[in-house]
């Protein structure tokens, strides 16, 4: 048992913390309030090699272990959740399936561009009638010679309106239900029939891009079928989510920590009834509850990452990390706002931003209810 980071992880954490403090935090309020897509921050992250952190060295990536990736996700989320979701949709949802399941040709064609940040990525599964029920995808892919013809649309896609490359989930054989699902890589600037639809106006993550995308007789070379075999899509998507959930869990931890840090500072500044808020036991209990939950959620996330690095089964712990990390984000952003009183409700302070940003962590990449289904299925066994 060893809870220490390696020296390398330690230097990485120090570097990314300093970077976030100087290059992201000062812009986070504007990114949210003005709905500014965090392009500048993503450029800087690319320059440091972070957009390629999940990609093997031979394809120009940094090939970081999962614990290190989790360190980065936590730090960026603490600074600005809009930036971290933009990053995560790329490094986790987009790069991971190509790294884990892509053919050699696909890796060679796409990974170097994703690693350098030349390409921004997205992953598109959700449709109007396929949310939690991912197997109900209605977008179709029909083989036509050396090509596939894709028709359908996707909603709520992170980076959907900005991405250069999108991994889309479509059905190649509707009768086979989830066994008929496949994933295709779309280079958006090259694909005819690819259209950008409605950009969503959201409660939180307001700097990030959440977009509808539409495929009208969109033709893709058959070499863009991820993994090269039809019907692998559902398995790949589930793998993507198992892994991505560590990221969302720790996104919650990052938001919670940001909220907590503000609370700790505020109780030592604000005075009422002639004393600092820190002197009121009710406030102290809030701090203690927040700190304890953050620590517990963080340990779950890092444990999941650690197990994944050990190449052991991690889906169960990852689901727990996501479920609990998002709950802790909600809990801490609410209590920290409460500690700030009326000031917490005002946009001059970041508390209301944390509060709004926290909510989505309970929804995307599998809702809390779906997390509980996953955890329970693991406990009870498949046949239940």
């Amino acid at each position, binding site marked *: 048992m060893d809870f220490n980071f390696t020296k390398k992880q330690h230097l990485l954490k120090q*570097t990314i913390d300093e970077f976030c403090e100087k290059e992201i935090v000062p812009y986070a309020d504007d990114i949210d309030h003005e709905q500014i897509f965090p392009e500048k921050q993503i450029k800087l992250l690319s320059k440091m090699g*972070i957009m390629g952190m999940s990609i093997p060295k031979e394809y120009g990536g940094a090939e970081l272990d999962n614990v290190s990736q989790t360190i980065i996700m936590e730090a960026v989320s603490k600074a600005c959740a809009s930036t971290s979701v933009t990053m995560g949709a790329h490094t986790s949802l987009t790069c991971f399936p190509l790294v884990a399941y892509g053919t050699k040709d696909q890796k060679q064609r796409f990974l170097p561009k994703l690693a350098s940040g030349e390409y921004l990525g997205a992953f598109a599964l959700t449709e109007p009638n396929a949310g939690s029920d991912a197997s109900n995808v209605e977008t179709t892919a029909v083989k036509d010679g050396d090509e596939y013809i894709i028709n359908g649309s996707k909603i709520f896609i992170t980076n959907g309106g900005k991405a250069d490359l999108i991994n889309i989930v479509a059905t190649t054989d509707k009768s086979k239900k989830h066994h008929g699902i496949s994933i295709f890589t779309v280079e958006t600037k090259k694909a005819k029939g690819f259209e950008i639809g409605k950009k969503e106006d959201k409660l939180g993550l307001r700097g990030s891009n959440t977009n509808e995308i539409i495929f009208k007789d969109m033709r893709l070379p058959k070499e863009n079928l991820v993994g090269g075999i039809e019907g692998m899509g559902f398995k790949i998507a589930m793998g993507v989510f198992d892994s991505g959930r560590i990221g969302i869990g720790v996104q919650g931890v990052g938001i919670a920590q940001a909220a907590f840090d503000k609370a700790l500072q505020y109780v030592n500044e604000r005075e009422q009834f002639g004393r600092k808020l820190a002197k009121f036991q009710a406030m102290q209990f809030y701090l203690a509850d927040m700190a304890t939950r953050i620590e517990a959620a963080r340990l779950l996330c890092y444990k999941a990452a650690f197990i994944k690095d050990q190449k052991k089964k991690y889906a169960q712990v990852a689901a727990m990390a996501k479920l609990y990390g998002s709950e802790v984000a909600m809990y801490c952003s609410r209590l920290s706002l409460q500690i700030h009183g009326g000031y917490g409700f005002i946009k001059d302070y970041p508390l209301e931003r944390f509060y709004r940003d926290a909510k989505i962590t309970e929804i995307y990449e599998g809702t809390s209810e779906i997390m509980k289904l996953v955890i329970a299925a693991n406990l009870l066994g498949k046949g239940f």
Partner: protein
Amino acid sequence: MKIVVCMKQVPDTNEIKIDQKTGTLQREGVPSIMNPEDKHALLAALNIKDAEVIALSMGPPQAEMILREALAYGANKAILLCDFAFAGSDTAATSYTLSKAIEKINPDLIVCGRQAIDGDTAQVGPQIAELLNLPQATYVQKIIKLDNEKVEIQKETEIGYDIMELNLPALITCTNDISEIDYPSLQGISKAFEENIETWKATDLKADKERLGLNGSPTWVNKSFTPTHQRQGNILKGNVKELAKQLAKEFIRKEIVKE
């Protein structure tokens, strides 16, 4: 062109608390970082084309971390001066030890931070230059020109800046202005842990033992405390003429104006 950058590992004073009772720093749990001006010194050195940049630090084994960081930024080599014989060094012993290592490396230019954020003396750079008989410039904001013979720099003064030219080899101490902040890449961080850090001991330095560590340190710290100074308001009384007179006197006393 061979450049040595001297760097010190310091506690992050932004996060440090002083024990009000004992006046000592509470170092426990405080992260250790590369002294900020030394980071700027390093980045300035790395900006120089085709220079071989050597990071040099004296400190305990943990000081390895700032040298790894230097390698992550792109330093070509890192040397740690680490030996029980160096323990307890004051600025004189620190400077002497560093100067012995620098003698061995034989660089064209030595760049130090102006001041360490913990010790705060700003003595080490100038003392090294004196010990090595080198020309020096302190408070350097900018390296204007550098060739094989000389370096032209701009240094900060109370009223503006001076431009100076120094024959090489020379030593400069710099402020944060000398370079823009930057961050190591993930690739750099990986590389930093694949490379070797050389550790030099007292015996590697051909140093006079009497001038090392506690033996070589004439300074003794008796007590450290945070001086408190209280500001007090003073309400002057009288008619306007008297008030003006009193006020003028006060200005003169405080040397705000001359008589």
